[in-house]
């Protein structure tokens, strides 16, 4: 009968735990703060709370004696948090780089059905038609502000291991600089129209050999000179820019890949889209650059998010077992002490809370260590991957406060699970037996 009761009790605890964990993952920061404040008030103001605090003090004071097993909890949880934060930071970094590239004030026009610039073709005779459409803002010279651009994938040699990688070579006109004010020359100068000159993104310069200012390189049997380096803080950093007409002549291409246009006011996009649909000569797609680039980051960042959560989840399970192990051992090692406390009048709840507080403290420490390691090693760590345009996009891991906060929540969740069952065992310890034993 009592076994049955205990079994049912355990089942209840497990169910409550699952519900608690689900609630915990959804809790926003002010919810966590409220829980924390309530806990502190309870600890300080009620009699049971004060007793629990006293019991916890005893346990925490003896932690240094058990530093080995306690370190297992800290390191185990630090590992989980570190891996999780790093994986999510990779996805977040890629997403941020592409999101920054676009905005709501400019639109990108591609051939209908094309997913990316590489696949798109916009013929020269379509450009004047596009520039006459409604919704496109006028530039300072009174002409429509738009930039027809060529996009060419070229082979570059990587600095890292001297293998070939695909780089994006963009042919632009004068308007490209005004349409993308974030692109700034940081070294050298802009290319001169009509000359075989290149300006390179700071990311491309870092990644490929031979892109320093003044160096010459051969593209399509022609010698090009690098005359400048630009910084944009987004995916253009991985690109090389040249004069569109010179580039078109070199690669014998007379069509463009995309047209970027500045939108006229708030409803410019709507007007442009409507005007585009109304012209049967233009079978083109138009999208705001923000949406276009955000769409490109979707797949990879989602994949990394899922992968990171699965791996983090499996590791968290492992860490829970480690924490359970350590805390069970801690409870067993202190059986007599706990029994003594119970004998002199500590009730079950303070004992449970004391063990839980101890575990949560270790978990918090683990979460902080893991987050700190992920931040120190990975924040700003740059990697590159193949983007939608079949060319390399450089991006940096981005360990944001939000991710660190998430990691901390995972750590405390693991601590909660790992501490609860040993805590319950401590509370259920038969006092007389424990006192007599050992």
């Amino acid at each position, binding site marked *: 009968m009592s076994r049955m009761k205990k079994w049912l009790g355990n089942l209840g605890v497990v169910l409550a735990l699952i519900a608690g964990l689900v609630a915990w993952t959804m809790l926003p920061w002010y919810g966590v703060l409220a829980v924390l404040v309530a806990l502190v008030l309870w600890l300080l103001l009620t009699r049971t709370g004060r007793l629990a605090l006293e019991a916890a003090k005893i346990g925490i004071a003896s932690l240094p004696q058990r530093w*080995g*097993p306690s*370190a*297992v909890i800290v*390191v*185990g949880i630090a*590992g*989980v948090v*570190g*891996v999780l934060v790093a*994986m999510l930071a*990779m996805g977040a970094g890629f997403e941020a780089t592409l999101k920054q590239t676009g905005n709501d004030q400019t639109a990108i026009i591609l051939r*209908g*059905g*094309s*997913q990316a610039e*590489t*696949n798109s*073709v916009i013929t020269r005779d379509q450009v004047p038609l596009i520039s006459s459409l409604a919704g496109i803002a006028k530039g300072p010279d009174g002409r429509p502000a738009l930039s027809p651009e060529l996009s*060419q*994938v*070229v*082979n570059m040699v990587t600095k890292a291991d001297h*293998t*070939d*990688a*695909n780089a994006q070579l963009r042919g632009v006109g004068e308007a490209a600089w005004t349409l993308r004010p974030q692109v700034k020359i940081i070294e050298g100068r802009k290319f001169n129209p009509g000359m075989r000159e290149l300006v390179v993104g700071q990311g491309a310069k870092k990644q490929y050999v031979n892109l320093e200012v003044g160096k010459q390189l051969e*593209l*399509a*049997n022609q010698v090009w000179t690098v005359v400048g380096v630009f910084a944009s803080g987004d995916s253009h950093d991985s690109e090389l820019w040249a004069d569109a007409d010179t580039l078109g002549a070199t*690669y*014998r291409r007379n069509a463009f890949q995309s047209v970027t246009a500045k939108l006229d006011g708030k409803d410019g996009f709507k007007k442009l889209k409507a005007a585009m649909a109304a012209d049967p000569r233009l*079978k083109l797609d138009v999208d705001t650059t923000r949406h276009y680039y955000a769409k490109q980051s979707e797949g990879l960042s989602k*994949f990394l998010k899922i992968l990171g959560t699965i*791996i983090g989840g*499996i*590791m968290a*399970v*492992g*860490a829970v*077992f*480690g924490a*359970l*192990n*350590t805390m*069970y*051992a801690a409870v067993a090692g202190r059986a007599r002490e706990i029994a003594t406390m119970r004998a002199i009048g500590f009730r079950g709840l303070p004992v449970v809370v004391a063990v839980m507080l101890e575990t949560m403290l270790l978990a918090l420490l683990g979460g902080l260590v893991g987050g700190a390691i992920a931040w120190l090693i990975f924040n700003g760590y740059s*990697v*590159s*991957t*193949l983007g939608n345009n*079949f060319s*390399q996009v450089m991006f940096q891991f981005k360990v944001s406060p939000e991710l660190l906060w998430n990691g901390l929540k995972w750590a405390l969740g693991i601590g909660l699970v790992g501490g609860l069952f040993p805590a319950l065992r401590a509370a259920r310890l038969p006092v007389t037996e424990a006192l007599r034993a050992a």
Partner: protein
Amino acid sequence: MKYLHLIWAALFRSKTRTFLTLLSVITAFLLFGMLDSVRVAFNSSANVAGYDRLITTSKLSITQSLPYRLQTQIEQVPGVAKASYATWFGGIYQDPKNFFPNFSVGPGYIELYPEYIIPPDQLKAFYATRNGAIVGEALAKQHGWKIGDTIPLQATIFPTKGSNNWEFKLVGIFKLAENSRKGEEKQLMFNWKYFDEANDFSKGQVHWYVVDLANANQSTQVARAIDALSDNSDHETKTQTEQAFNQAFFKQIGDIGLIVTSIMGAVFFTLVLLTGNTMAQAVRERIPELAVLKTIGFSNRSVLWLVLAEATLLVVLGGLIGLGIAAIVMPAVSAASMGLIQLPHMPSATWLVGIGLMLAIGIGVGLLPALRAMRLNIVDALAGR
């Protein structure tokens, strides 16, 4: 071996602890099994052994096309057995999320891949049907296609008569025997001739040539000879082995190997710590028992072996269960990854590395407690000092 029951009994002296340690070892090896098979899969697709083919692409960039007339010139290069060509199509089936490679192939292309198993009558039907297409078994299964079905594809690059709608008739299904290459079943191929006639702006252009060598050892000379054909023209080529080509491509997706290895490193560090701690605890608790063993005549050395064997047994037991679970769940993961990972079975390399790791970790974590047990002074230990 005769002490097995003793080791076994010692292992289950504290059931909760052994059980929990076992579970953390199991999770660690479950993770190892899954990550390592992904790593092996990525390496093996870049490492197609046994087939000696060359890939010729444009030197300028992989997206640049080459003239179709190179075909006859390449076939005349000494050392070339057969050559064929293909053009990337990049069509979308219903939704961009359904991505799979699709391209048009010249005559003889499929025969260059003898590892692609296809019934001869289906291959014949493929060449006989103008808009015929063949797909891999996995892709056909995924979309429920049967032979005779019409497959509509939305072009992203090449319109036909001003529209992006293309239709292909499924005439054949091929499969691959090797499990590690099942990912290659997710592609669709159709006739280049049809593509060349029906598309609006590419005429007589191909994206890559596949060259079969008469003698596998001549790859370097033949590649050089092929590239010499178009030296200083506007379509210079770059010829490399299929292996080098794939490797360069996979490398660009990102250094997956490095990421996987660092995750595994973090997992194992945690695991070693957990298990090592348990073993130290187990030995600490049993000091009086070990002293008794020594008193009744066990040598120092056999006590060392007993403790070491116990630790190794624990890790190997947990490791095997973990890898076993990984082997069971891998097919489910493959299915959930929507074609990104294709691993119906766990590669044998993963089993081998896993077992090696189990032994190494077992000995690693057991060594310190075992040495401690060996050096026990009987009198002190019995007295509890």
